[in-house]
């Protein structure tokens, strides 16, 4: 970036004094009810969690953001769809119809609430568990399942493991499996949007484990230094495979890592779709207004194994899982909607039937598609296929026999 376009330094509030050492907040203290319009960001670690919905779906007086009915129903229907899709894909994996799957049960609100707060022109850089964002942006279920199968309809052309969607029309970036790398990409894309003068905000996701990765630190720093129009969103689901968040980092909260980079931050109940929506909406508005990046920690929980290959009973206590079930994001929000007469049994049944049919149809359609053509092995390495690659493919095809994938993915 040139000196001319270098943003002027705006003083960022810093903590007045070193926060006194204190035990990790478990359960976390909750902030006093703030109004819906402004989700307060923090400059000192307080460990508070911003929320709207109580665990039972009720809302404290004055706290209801009173979102329009269509937004509320959109959020709910998306969450139910994400959950159903997730459940069915895990089943397909168990039946051997797809090779691997990374479930997101319990994290639906974090993805749905944050993506819903964006405009369609804003970009999304997902981590492992935000595939639903691609579908919210319009990736068809059939194409999504085709990715999981790795067939000819897969936009990655069968080159990536399952759960690596890519959807450029939806401004949804196709990630690698390497933890954290997308953080810098999100920041760079936001820098580019700013340099180009585009009214585009970038939402970059990561897990709690990713906050230990190099790219988290350079990404956060670049984001803040260039006041890039992005929101960096950490889904703290408490686990990175078998490593609990408490061993990943001993800072009191993930959110407060924003302090080190001079970035406003907010810690939000990730199982509360209204809170996630509000916090992201505010952060996006700041970015759009030229006020720079925000770091969001969504406190949530990975209720199943890390992936279809993981057995979490080896390293964590079932009671912890049970405790988080009580904070189920879908149940909480349904109770809220029901209490407002926006939802009822009949609507629920109809929605579930509609989703089940859509998923069934998509599975059937995707499973009818064959594998990518052999030639796709050598295309897209470069814009043009090299003579060497052509020769390599011809050699292999001349002797290619039966294809057997004999391994089983361990993770």
């Amino acid at each position, binding site marked *: 970036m040139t000196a001319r376009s270098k943003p002027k330094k705006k003083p960022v509030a810093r903590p007045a004094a070193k926060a006194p050492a204190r035990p990790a907040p478990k359960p976390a203290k909750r902030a006093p009810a703030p109004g819906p319009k402004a989700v307060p960001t923090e400059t000192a670690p307080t460990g508070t969690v911003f929320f709207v919905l109580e665990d039972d779906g009720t809302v404290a007086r004055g706290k209801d953001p009173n979102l329009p009915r269509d937004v509320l129903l959109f959020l709910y229907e998306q969450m139910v769809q994400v959950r159903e899709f997730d459940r069915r894909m895990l089943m397909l994996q168990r039946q051997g119809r797809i*090779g*691997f799957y990374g479930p997101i049960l319990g994290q639906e609100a974090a993805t749905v609430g944050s993506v819903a707060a964006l405009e369609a022109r804003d970009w999304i850089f997902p981590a492992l568990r935000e595939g639903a964002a691609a579908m919210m942006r319009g990736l068809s279920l059939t194409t999504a399942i085709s990715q999981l199968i*790795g*067939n000819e309809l*897969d936009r*990655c052309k*069968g*080159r*990536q*493991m399952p759960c690596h969607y890519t959807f450029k029309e939806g401004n949804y970036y196709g990630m*690698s*499996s*390497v*933890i*954290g790398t997308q953080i810098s990409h999100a920041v760079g894309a936001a820098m580019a949007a700013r340099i180009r003068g585009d009214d585009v905000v970038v939402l970059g996701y990561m897990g709690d*484990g*990713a906050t*230990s*990765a*190099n*790219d988290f630190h350079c990404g956060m720093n670049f984001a803040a230094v260039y006041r890039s129009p992005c929101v960096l969103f950490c889904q703290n689901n408490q686990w*990175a*495979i*078998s*490593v609990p968040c408490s*061993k*990943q*980092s001993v800072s009191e909260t993930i959110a407060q890592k924003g302090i080190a980079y001079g970035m406003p931050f907010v810690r939000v109940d990730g199982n509360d779709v209204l809170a996630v929506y509000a916090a992201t909406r505010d952060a996006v508005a700041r970015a759009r207004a030229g006020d720079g990046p925000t770091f969001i920690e969504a406190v949530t929980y990975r209720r199943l194994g890390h992936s279809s*290959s*993981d057995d979490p009973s*080896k*390293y964590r206590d079932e009671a912890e899982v049970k405790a988080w079930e009580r904070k189920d994001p879908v149940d909480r929000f349904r109770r809220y909607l029901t209490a407002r007469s926006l939802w009822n049994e009949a609507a629920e049944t109809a929605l579930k039937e509609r989703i089940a049919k859509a998923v069934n149809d998509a599975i059937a359609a995707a499973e009818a598609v064959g*594998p*990518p053509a*052999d030639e*796709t*092995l*050598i295309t897209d*390495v470069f814009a043009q296929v*090299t003579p*060497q*690659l052509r020769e*390599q*493919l011809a*050699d*292999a*095809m*001349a*002797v*290619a*026999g039966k*294809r*057997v*994938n*004999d*391994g*089983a*993915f*361990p*993770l």
Partner: protein
Amino acid sequence: MTATETKTQEARPGFKVMTLLEAITDAMRTEMRNDDRVVVFGEDVGKKGGVFGATLGLQDEFGEQRCFDTPLSECGIIGAGVGMALYGMRPIAEIQFLDFIYPAFDQIVSEAAKMRYRSGGEYTCPMVIRSPYGGGIRGGHYHSQSAEAYFCHTPGLKVVIPSTPADAKGLLIASIRDEDPVMFLEPKRIYRHGKGEVPLGEHVVPLGKGRIAREGKDVTILCYGAMVHVCEQAAEEAEKAGRSVEIVDLRTLVPLDEQIVLESVKKTGRAVVVYEAPKTCGYGAELSALIAEKCIEHLEGPVVRVAGFDTPFPYTLEPLYMPDVKRVLAGIEKTFVW
């Protein structure tokens, strides 16, 4: 002795039948008992025992001081390992998949590899970096790569790849005892395929010594890791067609046992190099050059490479990408008909 040959055998006294994976655990356990400077760390190696189970039981036996989970940072894992090694410990760092080692590339290439040379021998880095590598598990782009060539190209690193359970144990113990940094790359595809007899307790297979995995007289196959088993199957097939195939399992890529390579090629007059990494600038290119330089006058046909494609690693088309029996057989034929 191959892993498959001993599959159904009862172990002799002093041996135990193990998978390659179990042999790796056994090596670490043995050395941790022997030497309290040995520590094991990496992502998920503690309670979970590693995503493949290579460190199962180590934290229970040796405690969290000597077998511990790290934050998700390969750079941190290797950087801290370098610090421990130069302080006098014998760290074993696990990188969950070799595909994820690149955030630590700088620590390995600029620091670990050069520590001894740049400090005039004052500081050294006796560290083992263990990592599962290679294809065959439906891992797609980022859980399948064979990156050995990068490390072979870095002076100061030893590169070791076992192909049998007994070698896995013996080579890992030798690597832990070695005075220099060792990249110990584990062919994860054969972690649990086939078992073999492994000596109990102390068992050292010296670095820098290859192994004749199969004797033959018409053509030599040079290979390592999971490809040894593919080549053994191909050799069986070739034998039926009247070609007697010798297989050299290199075991250590750096330092290379040149003698075993050259003697075999001089004997057979033909060489096929099999590796699953991308063909261009792969380790097989080095072997081909070596043969051309040092025994071209014994060759009766071209040195043929059978390798992975010069593409990133695929998912669905993995079976097309990976060298298999048919491609190895075709490679053998090319040394006769050209």
